[in-house]
């Protein structure tokens, strides 16, 4: 799956985009965030406050219990501030 990071999540993780293959136990958004958090100290810092993060799966807003699978495009970003 492809994981995208925007705004300060990109700054803290140090990556804008990564192609990942999580283990079989990662089946929901919440499980994916737990797994991502352990990837690096930067990921750990970026994902520390889950309330500060919005998630999109295949460009649709998603919730912690929503499913994720191989081939999905997952995006992590802060609450939006356009307009």
């Amino acid at each position, binding site marked *: 799956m492809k994981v*995208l990071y*925007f*705004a*300060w999540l990109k700054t803290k993780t140090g990556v804008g985009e990564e192609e990942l293959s999580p283990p079989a136990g990662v089946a929901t958004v919440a499980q994916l965030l737990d797994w991502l958090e352990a990837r690096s100290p930067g990921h750990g810092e970026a994902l520390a406050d889950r309330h500060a993060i919005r998630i*999109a799966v295949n*460009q649709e807003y998603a919730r912690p219990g929503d499913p994720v699978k191989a081939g999905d495009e997952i*995006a992590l*970003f*802060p*609450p*939006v*501030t*356009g*307009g």
Partner: protein
Amino acid sequence: MIRVQREDFDLGAEVKALTARNPRIGGLCSFVGLVRDMHGDDSVRAMTLEHYPGMTEKMLQRIDDEAHWRWPLEASLVIHRHGRLDPGDQIVLVATASPHRQAAFEACQFLIDWLKTQAPFWKKEETPEGERWVEARESDDAAAERWAGTGKAAG
């Protein structure tokens, strides 16, 4: 109609094109958002707007479709810029046209309120103390929440 672009836009030319050859339009409402040089007590030298290509267009199109479903609009346009902008620069344009003014006014406010909480854009400000990401405002959520009902509005 929606557009996401780096380039500036011309309000006059855009609304003229939007209303051209449609004599059913009796009212046109437009909103333009600009870059301020202050945020609270801090001065802002410039701003960079990041976005999520693909999802941005998808969300804007959905918001635009929703406005057309709720109000009897003859035409609408949302333009949102990205990239680096200076104080005074235009950021966003929303224009709505309908036979009567009420639908145009309401749909215009709905579109800007909703895009501020739904469309994946993020502002980074350059201040004398350095760069910082703008935090979302609860008042923007409250503004969008006003439109949370799903029923059709009065035309």
